[in-house]
């Protein structure tokens, strides 16, 4: 479990805090999306989970361990794996399998077990065939899956994606998203920081941030009822939701559960 207790964080030379008195609890096995416009503090929040940033006020605990305690950091970073935005800037070595091995090598795992973990991690992201490829020959989506494999090799309980899909093309994004969903189905806690609302539809919970504060949290169907708050936070609701809302305004009896094109068409068909 991850707990943020009233944390405030201010970057050096910044006029206002990037995070202002934020509290949040993330349960084990949850799939949670943190959404917000540029400068809303969503990435700053994510970087607090594994101690890359330490709160100026308040505290962050992972499974009861405070990130402020230096001795906890290595343990916390084993529990919380983190993938970043630019796929090029998080791969360390030239060859795919060597890169996946980087994490467990840092932990001093025995060579035979590293081999096993690397094979498992590559299998989990569907990249087994690319084990001996050079990373610069891969597409953005593939690189991002390798980055995730590198995290999985550390056997984490929580996967944090800090705008990991932002630099990918639509097919790369779909690749990444289905990998993440699969991992969540296998019991991984997932925290996804994103600007793309259509990626959040299948989450358990959405947290909407604006100006360093949480302005809205709830299940996708709850959050997408508040289109006004989303628009105030400079976020665009998924297209299906926009269509649903205009149809509702025209008098069609549609439920709030319809969040993507399929669900919407299921509800629309009987009406026609």
């Amino acid at each position, binding site marked *: 479990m991850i707990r943020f207790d009233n944390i405030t964080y201010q970057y050096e030379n910044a006029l206002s805090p990037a995070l202002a008195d934020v509290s949040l609890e993330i349960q084990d096995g949850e799939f949670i999306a943190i959404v917000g416009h540029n400068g809303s503090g969503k990435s700053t929040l994510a970087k607090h989970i594994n101690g*890359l940033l330490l709160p100026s006020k308040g505290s962050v605990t992972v499974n009861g361990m405070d990130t402020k305690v230096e001795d906890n950091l290595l343990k916390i*970073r084993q529990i919380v794996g983190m993938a970043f935005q630019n796929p090029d*800037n998080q791969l360390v070595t030239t060859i795919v399998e060597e890169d996946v091995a980087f994490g467990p090598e840092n932990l001093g795992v025995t060579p035979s077990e590293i081999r096993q973990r690397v094979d498992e991690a590559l299998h989990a992201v569907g990249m087994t065939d690319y084990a001996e490829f050079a990373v610069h020959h891969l597409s953005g989506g593939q690189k991002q899956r390798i980055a995730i494999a590198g995290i999985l090799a550390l056997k984490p309980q929580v996967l944090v994606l800090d705008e990991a899909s932002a630099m990918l093309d639509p097919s790369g994004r779909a690749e990444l998203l289905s990998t993440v969903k699969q991992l969540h189905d296998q019991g991984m806690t997932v925290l996804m920081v994103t600007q793309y609302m259509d990626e959040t539809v299948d989450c358990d919970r959405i947290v909407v941030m604006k100006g360093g504060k949480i302005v809205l949290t709830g299940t996708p169907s709850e959050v997408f009822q508040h289109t006004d708050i989303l628009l105030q936070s400079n976020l665009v609701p998924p297209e299906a939701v926009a269509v649903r809302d205009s149809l509702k305004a025209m008098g069609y009896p549609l439920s709030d559960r319809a969040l993507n094109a399929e669900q919407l068409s299921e509800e629309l068909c009987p009406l026609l």
Partner: protein
Amino acid sequence: MRDITLGQFVAGNSVIHKLDPRTKIAMMILYIAMTFLVKRIYFMAIPFAYLVLELILSGISLRYIVNSLKPIRILLIFMFILNLFFTSGENVWLDLGFWKLTGEAVLQSCFISIRIILLVAGASMLTLTTSPIALTDGIEKLLAPLKIFRFPAHELAMMMTIALRFVPTLMDESDKIRNAQMSRGADFESGNIFKRVKSMIPILIPLFVSSFRKADELAIAMESRCYHGGEGRTRMKQLKFRKEDLFAILITLLFMASLIVLLIVLK
């Protein structure tokens, strides 16, 4: 452009490929020593035979060796001519008054050229048969004893690994920046050499800035993946010194010994 790495590695399954990188580094050092021990041109036959043996065993095509010599052709020609002019001798072949072409000079020129060719070809044999990662691993292990003198062997190897990893990435980046500057009217092709070098500045500065950003992001990613220096770190692929390695070293030493014997006997 994207496939350029430091030295070109040709994947293979030969005896030479399978040797421990440390063995291959040691072999190359001994080989270089051999070429420098030789003082007369016909003794070059020994390091040459050694190189040919290595080439045959590795199954590397001669084409790659020839390619590796291409960048140094200017140097070769320069050295050849320089030695023709500045070696004195008795055996005059041609007398132009201000300069005599002597047999000794021709011999010396050939000797120097052969030595350079053998040196470069030998060094490329190492990079052609050893993957960059194996090479950095080998260097790290060979330098590890120096750690007691606080020599940063692990850090050096990690830097080399990262540098190799980012060569293609930075190549792409410089292409992008070049195109971006050209679309704004930058001119990289005309003018004399000084002008052209100066016109590289608009490429180099953005490249420099972006490298710093990359380094920063990479450091964060490495830290997130529990990197905390070389202490307590293990490797997935262990280097193993096997029978074949011992055998290779012994053969190299045999060549070395026979060369030394020849040098003493035929003084």
